[in-house]
C-alpha cells in the first residue's frame, strides 16, 4: 500500500528530472544555430562581383590552393558590428585570407559601413540577390565559413 502512495511522488520526480534535463540541454546560447551540412563537403562553386572593383568577378576556382575564411556580413546587420573587431583582430594576424561576403546589401551602404568600422578584408565579394548564399545554406548574418585549400568547408560558425 505504501508503494502505491509514493507512486505519484516518484512520477513527479521523474517528470521534474526530465524537465530539468531539457532546461540543462538548452543552456547553450547558440542552441538555435543549425550545424551546417556542408562541413567536410566541397564548398559551393561561385562567381561573385568584387565590392571595391565593379565589373570584376572572382570565382571559387581562383581562390583554391590556400584556405580562406568567408565572413558573411551586411551593413543592415547589427550583430556584425559586434563581431567585426574579432574578425579584424584575426585578419591582422595574416594567418589565413579573410574574405568578406557582403550579403543582400546596397553597394553604397556596404562601402560606408567598411569606411566606418574599417576594412580588414583581403577581398570583399558581394551577393546582392542572395542566390549564392542559398548554396552556402546562409540564413542569417554574421556567419563564417572556413574553406580549406582543397575547397572543402572545414568549419562554420554563426555568432548570432
Amino acid at each position, binding site marked *: 500500500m505504501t508503494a502505491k502512495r509514493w507512486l505519484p511522488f516518484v512520477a513527479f520526480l521523474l517528470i521534474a528530472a526530465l524537465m530539468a534535463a531539457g532546461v540543462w540541454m538548452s543552456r547553450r546560447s547558440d542552441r*538555435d544555430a*543549425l*550545424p*551546417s*551540412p*556542408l562541413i567536410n563537403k566541397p564548398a559551393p562553386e561561385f562567381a561573385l562581383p568584387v565590392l571595391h572593383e565593379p565589373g570584376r568577378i572572382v570565382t571559387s576556382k581562383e581562390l583554391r590552393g590556400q584556405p580562406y575564411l568567408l565572413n558573411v556580413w*551586411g551593413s*543592415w*546587420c*547589427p*550583430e*556584425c558590428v559586434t563581431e567585426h573587431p574579432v574578425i579584424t583582430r584575426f585578419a591582422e594576424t595574416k594567418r589565413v585570407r579573410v574574405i568578406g561576403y557582403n*550579403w*543582400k*546589401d546596397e553597394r553604397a551602404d556596404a562601402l560606408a559601413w567598411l569606411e566606418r568600422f574599417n576594412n580588414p578584408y583581403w577581398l570583399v565579394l558581394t551577393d546582392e540577390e*542572395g542566390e549564392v*548564399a*542559398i*548554396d*552556402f*545554406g546562409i*540564413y*542569417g*548574418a*554574421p556567419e563564417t565559413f572556413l574553406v580549406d585549400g582543397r575547397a572543402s568547408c572545414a568549419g562554420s560558425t554563426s555568432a*548570432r
Partner: protein
Amino acid sequence: MMRMLRTGWFVGLLLALLASTAAFAQKATDPAPLQFTSTAEEKRFHALVAELRCVMCQNQSLADSNAQIAVDLRREVLELMREGRSDQEVRDFLVARYGEFVLYRPQVEAKTWLLWFGPLLFALLGGVVVWRLLRRNAGAAPPPADDSQEW
C-alpha cells in the same frame, strides 16, 4: 493642435516599432508576391512549402514566414519546380544546404526510428500496463466502500 501631437506620437511609435523589427539580423525589404502560371502549380507549391521549415524563425513553415530568407527560399523553390524538379529533388536540394532541420517530416532512417516509432512504443507499453491492471483486478472483489471518505 492636440490632435496633431497625438498623430505625431502615433507615427513616432510606429517608426520605433519598425526600427525594432529591422534590428534583427535579417534584411527587411518588401517582397514582390510570387506569380503562378497555373492553379496546379500554385497548389503543388503551397503543399511543398507547407512541409518545409523556415530556417530563421524555426517554428514556422516556409509558407507562413515573412523572414527575408523565407521569401528568398520560396522563390528558389518555385524556380526549382519550374526547372522540372520533383518534390523530392526540391527537398533534397534544401537538405543539402540547410540540413535535415528544414524537413517537418524527417526521413525514416536509423537515427529517426525513435522519433517515428517512439509514440507507438509508448502506446504499446501503456497497453501492456492497462492489460495487466485489468487482469489483476478481474479476479479480485470490488473494493469495499470507504465510509471514512468525505466527499
